[in-house]
């Protein structure tokens, strides 16, 4: 896990001399590029289809021609998706879900990261007795399928008076993200020299001052990676929001599914596709902007050891 400490760098590219392979276009290279091109088209096609469909009118869509560019370019579908389409009971568009998701994502990112950092800090430097056992059980808990926990957690949140509320869904996200967040920061702090911590102790630093003034500011790379993971993960969640958020706070993914799968009558594919893109906008933006940091989060989170 040494990788966790260093800020993300470009993956090491082998020196040019290391593998002498002809850069001229021999049949092998042509085949290579052909394969990559076909693969790229397969991966890019759905996004392309979503985009062109969202700018077409329904008359044009009924004609078929899935891949054709819109002949009469219109943004009507986007307006309808954002502020008019019916999501179950109300017809105010997916913007309601958008702001619900924002309201869920912000605390569900900040809180789990802070708790995860605190756990990692306590586990790596203070090592209270028995804490490692606790950590091992927490990591095992990460493998428990959601369905095992969901009903008892309904009971627990109901007993706390938090079921179907914003604090309730935040608490649920805190619970489900705790293993990964704790793991990230534990491994990160484990790679910081213990001498640094001991020096701070000798200078009279206590538990909280060392955490807040020394360790947290040192954790910036990990804080960024964790934030990327939480924002995309919580934004893309469907099942937890469906069960725990309550009808007042349904996240955008749930409302999107309602828009498309519960409407009767003709399906407005242009509106549906616009709504789907709108729902994917935040995680896609995070992905395109963060680039390698995103990949690094996956790699760090993938190591459950």
């Amino acid at each position: 896990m040494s990788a966790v400490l260093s800020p993300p760098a470009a993956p090491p590219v082998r020196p040019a001399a290391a593998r002498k392979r002809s850069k001229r276009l021999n049949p092998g290279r042509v085949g290579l590029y052909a394969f990559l091109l076909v693969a790229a088209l397969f991966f890019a096609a759905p996004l392309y289809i979503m985009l062109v469909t969202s700018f077409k009118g329904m008359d044009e869509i009924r004609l078929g021609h899935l891949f054709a560019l819109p002949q009469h370019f219109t943004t009507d579908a986007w307006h309808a998706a954002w502020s008019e389409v019916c999501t179950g009971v109300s017809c105010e568009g997916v913007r309601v879900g958008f702001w619900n998701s924002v309201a869920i994502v912000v605390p569900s990112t900040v809180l789990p990261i802070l708790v995860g950092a605190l756990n990692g800090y306590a586990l790596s430097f203070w090592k209270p007795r028995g804490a490692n056992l606790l950590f091992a059980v927490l990591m095992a808990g990460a493998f428990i399928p959601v369905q095992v926990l969901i009903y008892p957690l309904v009971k627990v949140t109901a007993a706390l008076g938090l079921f179907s509320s914003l604090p309730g869904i935040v608490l649920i996200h805190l619970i489900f993200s705790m293993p990964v967040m704790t793991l990230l920061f534990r491994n990160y702090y484990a790679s910081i020299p213990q001498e640094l911590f001991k020096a701070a102790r000798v200078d009279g630093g206590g538990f909280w001052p060392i955490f807040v003034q020394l360790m947290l500011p040192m954790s910036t790379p990990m804080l960024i990676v964790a934030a990327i993971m939480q924002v995309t993960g919580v934004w893309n969640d469907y099942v937890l929001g469906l069960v725990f958020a309550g009808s007042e706070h349904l996240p955008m993914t749930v409302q999107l599914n309602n828009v498309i799968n519960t409407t009767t009558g003709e399906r407005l594919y242009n509106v549906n596709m616009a709504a789907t893109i709108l729902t994917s906008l935040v995680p896609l933006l995070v992905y395109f902007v963060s680039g390698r940091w995103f990949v690094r989060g996956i790699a760090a989170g993938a190591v459950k050891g």
Partner: protein
Amino acid sequence: MSTRAASLLRKLVPWGALLPMALVVLVGYLGTALWTLRVSLSSSRTFPNDDFVGLAQYERLFDNERWLLSLQNLAVYGVLFIVACIAIGFLLAVFIDQKVRGEGLLRTIFLYPYAMSFVATGLVWQWVLNPGDGLQQAVRQMGFESFTFDWIVDQDKVIYTVVIASVWQASGLVMALMLAGLRGVDEEIWKAARLDGIPPWRVYLSIVLPMMGSTVATVFVLLFTGVVKVFDAVVSMTQGGPGTASDVPAKFIMDHLFGRANLSLASAGSMVLLAMVLAVVALLAPVLYARSRRGSVGGHA
């Protein structure tokens, strides 16, 4: 009293800081899992009750055709999804590793679906695959009048469409992890292989792939845990249909928890899922543990 009490208090601070974690472990994970285990041994319907009926719910579960169908779907889906993701992901990683032009762009294209939610993924593919205005119609309009691709409305083939959408979504992730693993392979191995005149594809298959065993194991566990809880994609893409043809265990459980008010049967189902995950994790634990100790191959991205 003051100094001793103060030092005792200071010793307790780290414990206090870990209190939320202890609560989550004890209540959030262990308590709830035990509760579900207990309910699965009762006859609870809408509300939990505390009678004890042994394994009766498990017997009923495995007499239930819908459950058996959903397990069968899960097996088909799981095998195809994992094999396809690993094969495509590895191929893409190897091909990208050949110093191709536009590596950054290609990586971005292959991985962006992973940033999208399962719901969005399912909805896009539902649109692409619907026979009326989707791919089938588009190909027919290109002149292939008899082209047929209506798996999404075919009871026997619908589960394959969920595989297609999921592979599209997740194989970029496999590519990213595999590429990191490939870049971690020692340069000396390539030099030695070239001196011995071994063709690159042999090196990849016989030397590099076995060296990446722990990366493959990590990828496998990641994909497998995803398979077991597959729910959003099915709900948004097919709603389990046509009929119950694309039903999966997670959907069966959610329906019986919230729609059909059969707590005990749903709990038995989720315990079966848990047992499957634990079995696989226990099987692979040695490989994964070795990886986290060494922490070299595949740790970089």
